[in-house]
Each structure stands twice: as C-alpha cells, then as structure tokens.
C-alpha cells in the first residue's frame, strides 16, 4: 500500500517540477525542452514500477520496468542478433531499395504529364491501403529469410515515397521555372539546380514516414515465417509462452531502433534543407 501512495507522491512531485520548469523564464531554452519530457518519462516509469510491485500485478500482465531492464541486460546478444536480422537486413535494405526505386519512378513519371495525372490518384489510393496484408504472399514468393522481409518493406514504402516525390517535383512556381528558362537551362540543369532541391522537404517527409513503415513491414512479415531469429519471430514465440519481459525488451529495442532511424533521417534533413522555413526557427 505504501508503494501505491508513493507512486502518487512521485506523480505529484513530477508534475510540480515539470510545471515549474515550463513556467520559468527559461522554458524556451534547450535544457528545459529536454528536461521536461525526460522528467515526464522518468515519472511514468517510476509510477509503473511502484504500482506494479505495490498492487502485485502478475508478471504475465505487466512486468515491472526493473524486470524488463534486467531481461534486456541478460539477453543483449539475442536482442542484437534479432536487431541485425530484422531492422538492418530486412528493414534498412528494403527501405533503401524501395525509396530509391520510388524516387527514380517519380523522376521518370515527371517527364510524362499523362502518366503523372494517371499515376498520382492511383498512388494516393494505394498509399492509403493496408499493404501489410501482402506480407504472407511475399513470404511465400521470396522464402523465409530476410529477402522476403525486404520485399514487404519495398512495397510498403514505395507508394508514400512516390506520391511525396511527385508532389515535391511540382512544387516550384512559374516564376522560378521561367527564371531557369531565361538562364537557358536544360531539363537536367533545372532539375538538379531548382526542382530537386525544391522537392527535398517533400522527399524527406516521405523518407520520415517510411522509416516507421519499414520497421512495421519487417516485423509483420516475420509473423508469417522466419528463420529462428528476428524481432517479429521473438515477439510471437515469447508471447506464446507468456515471456512478457522478453517481449517488452524487444519492444524497447524496436522503439530505440525506430527513434534512432527517424532521428538520423531528420538530422540529414536538417543538413539538406537548411533553407526551409520549418528548419530555421
């Protein structure tokens, strides 16, 4: 019971500190911007730990953060192997193939307005479809190893990427294009100097959306057959034997991998599109 009360004390204290920092004059500075979410996160973890132990919640329903952490520390080599198999071999290779294929396709479409008007509505529609459903088909075609996971990722990231790139390539004003003409720039010159740079914010938007899709695709595909390693494989087998601490450790890996992946793309974006208003504030 004391632990439950302590949990609420932690809650009150965390909220108080966060509110104080947010109301202080320095709330726009970098330290405050990092401190507040971190305090919030620590508060949630502490309350989770205290409530789970205090209320004697069964390990099968919700393991305490400390249990998850010790499982994580105990099985780093397994987790690392799963990460290599799913995130790097399946996810990243599929992501690279799918995104570059989509950009290439967008550049090809861009030269033919007829194709553009035909493909864009279809691409928009397909981007809204639950494409993960094709995972079992592709696993059937490409076998159980990472190739089939990469194939699922390729199909999943292709259409959002295509739509974004085509939109981005159209995002120049008539004035800018006319200026390129007065410089007597050819198609390739105005593509490289004007339209591709102008399309970069859209392309990076697509790339960022695709990071999450890539991990989802790679993990779902493993539910339909995989070698005896991989994050999706581990999650489905451990859920089967109620090893929820291991499942949570895998989710931690997925969360870290997803955030790092997204962060890397966002970092590259900041370097490439430094001129865009959204990057300047």
């Amino acid at each position, binding site marked *: 019971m004391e632990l439950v009360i302590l949990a609420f004390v932690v809650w009150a204290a965390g909220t108080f500190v966060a509110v104080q*920092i947010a109301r202080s004059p320095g709330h726009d500075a970098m330290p405050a911007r990092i401190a507040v979410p971190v305090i919030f996160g620590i508060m949630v973890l502490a309350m989770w730990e205290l409530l789970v132990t205090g209320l004697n919640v069964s390990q099968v329903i919700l393991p305490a953060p400390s249990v998850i952490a010790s499982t994580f520390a105990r099985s780093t080599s397994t987790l690392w192997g799963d990460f290599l198999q799913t995130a790097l071999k399946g996810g990243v290779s599929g992501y690279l193939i799918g995104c570059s294929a989509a950009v290439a396709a967008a550049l090809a479409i861009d030269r033919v307005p007829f194709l553009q*008007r*035909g493909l864009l509505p279809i691409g928009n529609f397909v981007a809204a479809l*639950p494409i*993960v*459903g094709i*995972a079992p088909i592709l696993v059937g075609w490409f076998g159980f190893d990472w190739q089939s996971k990469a194939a699922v990722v390729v199909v999943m990231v292709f259409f959002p990427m295509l739509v974004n790139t085509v939109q981005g390539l159209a995002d120049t004003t008539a004035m800018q294009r006319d200026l390129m003409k007065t410089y007597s720039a050819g198609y390739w010159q105005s593509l490289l100097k004007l339209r591709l740079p102008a399309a970069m914010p859209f392309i990076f938007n697509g790339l960022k959306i695709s990071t999450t899709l890539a991990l989802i695709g790679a993990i779902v595909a493993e539910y339909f057959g995989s070698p005896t390693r991989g994050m*999706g494989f581990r999650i489905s087998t451990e*859920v089967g034997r109620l090893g929820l601490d291991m499942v949570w450790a895998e989710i931690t890996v997925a969360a870290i991998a997803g955030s790092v992946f997204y962060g890397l793309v966002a970092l590259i974006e900041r370097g490439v599109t430094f001129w865009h208003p959204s990057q300047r504030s």
Partner: protein
Amino acid sequence: MRNVLPVLTVLLVIVGIWYAAAIWMNSAWTIDRADGPLTFSEIVSDTMSQDRPRLPAPHQVWAEFQKTVFDTKVTSKRSLVFHGWITLSSTLAGFALGTVTGILMAVGIVYSRPVSMSLMPWAIISQTIPIVALAPMIIVVLASLGVDGRAVPKAIISAYLCYFPVLVGMVKGLKSPDAMQLDLMKTWSATGWQSFWRLRFPSSVPYLFTSLKVGIAAALVGTIVGELPTGAVRGLGARILIGDQFGNPMMIWSALIAAAVLAGVLVTVVSVMQTVAMKRMGFAR
C-alpha cells in the same frame, strides 16, 4: 474529370502487367507437371486456371471475390461481407477512440505549456515504435484481464495508429487563428470557453478533416494488423492469415481486394463529409 482517361490507361497497364506476371510466375509449375514439351498457348491457358497459383490472374481473383461477396449469404462465415463488417466495426471503434484522444491531447497541448512540453516528444516517439510489436501482447494482456473477444484489442491498436495524425493536425488547426483574431476575441471580453468554441475550434475544422482522412486509413491498417498475427478467426486480416495457412492464394487476394474497397469507401465517406461541412461553415469558395 480530365484525369479519367490517364487513370484508366494506367489501370489497364497494371492489369496487363499482372497478367504477364501471372503467366511468368505460374509457368514453372505448368512445365514441371507436363509430360512432354508444351506450346506457348498451352502454357498460357494453364497458368490462367491453376488451383493454387503463385500469382492468381485478375479474373480468378475477381471470380473468388464475386463468389464470396455477392453469391454467399451475408451471415455465412464464408462471406467476405461478414468479415468486412467485423473489420469495419473495429475500425470505426478505433477511429472514434483515436480521434477523441487526438483532439483532447491537442487541446491540452495548445492550452497548457507543461502538457505541450512533456507530451509532444513522447507522442512523436510513440509513433516510431512499430505498433505490430505491441499487437500480440495487447491481446494476451487483455485476455488475462478478462476482456473476451478480439474487438477491444483491435480497436486499441487502430486507435494507436490513428490518434497521431489527428493530434498533429488539430494542434496546427487550433493554433491557426492569428494574434489579431485572438485579440479581437479579447476586446469582446470573450471567456476562454467562448473563444475556443467561436474561434479556435471552427478554424481548426479544415485541418481536422484532412487529418481524419489520414486517420481513417491508418485505423483500417491498424485493425488489419491487429487481426494478422493473433490467430483471429474473423475479419479480413484473419481471412488473409487463414488463406496463408491453408495455401489458398485466391482467399488472400480477394480479402486484399475487399480491404482495398473498404479503404476506398471509408476515405470517400470522410471526403464527402468534409465537402458538406466546409460548405455549411462557409469555407468553400
């Protein structure tokens, strides 16, 4: 309307590629089975009508779709309408839950700096966690808590995917009135409640509908993901899973077509609602 011809052309090309791929992918099986050498036309006609093709031809998928949608009683477990309904009801429940959560969080973020500073980074991180990793666990946990059936876990998963676009859109929308408009509300000595309902909320509606279109598609993806890895027996995702386990490609493909139709219908319904609401509110020009 000027897009109709290009779209139809592209669709025709896609069907053409599909047929060509079906012939190419299924021909290995045809040649394996044959006793002697086959002519090209014999190979083609066989690849069009295999029972378990690697890639079923479009007309085979269409026949299966027609059989399970129109020729089967709606109450039957073989009817795709029945499975589609299961998926649809979870999608709508998740969509409602996700939309309400997204809007409430957006209001909190716009009105309170501590909430904004502590929630927003975590909301972004929550989207980088692949939800599918959580799906099997949510189902096991809810089952051990005594929640029967799969409707609730599926709705939670689809709400998880759908709240984020709504949150982002609503934060943008609620912040869209400029300082001049907010000052005007102040000169009328409007209360916070009044300036929310008369100014901030109405100006956020265009943003809301744009996010809802993304959100409803995401909710459908969430529901199908929730049905896929979990041994569900009802719903479109379950049809895909069962089709995979029994090696019945036609079943997988027709469920995929049904999911695509459902997605199209849902997005269209939201767009129509958007057009009507925009007109009534005077946004349309």
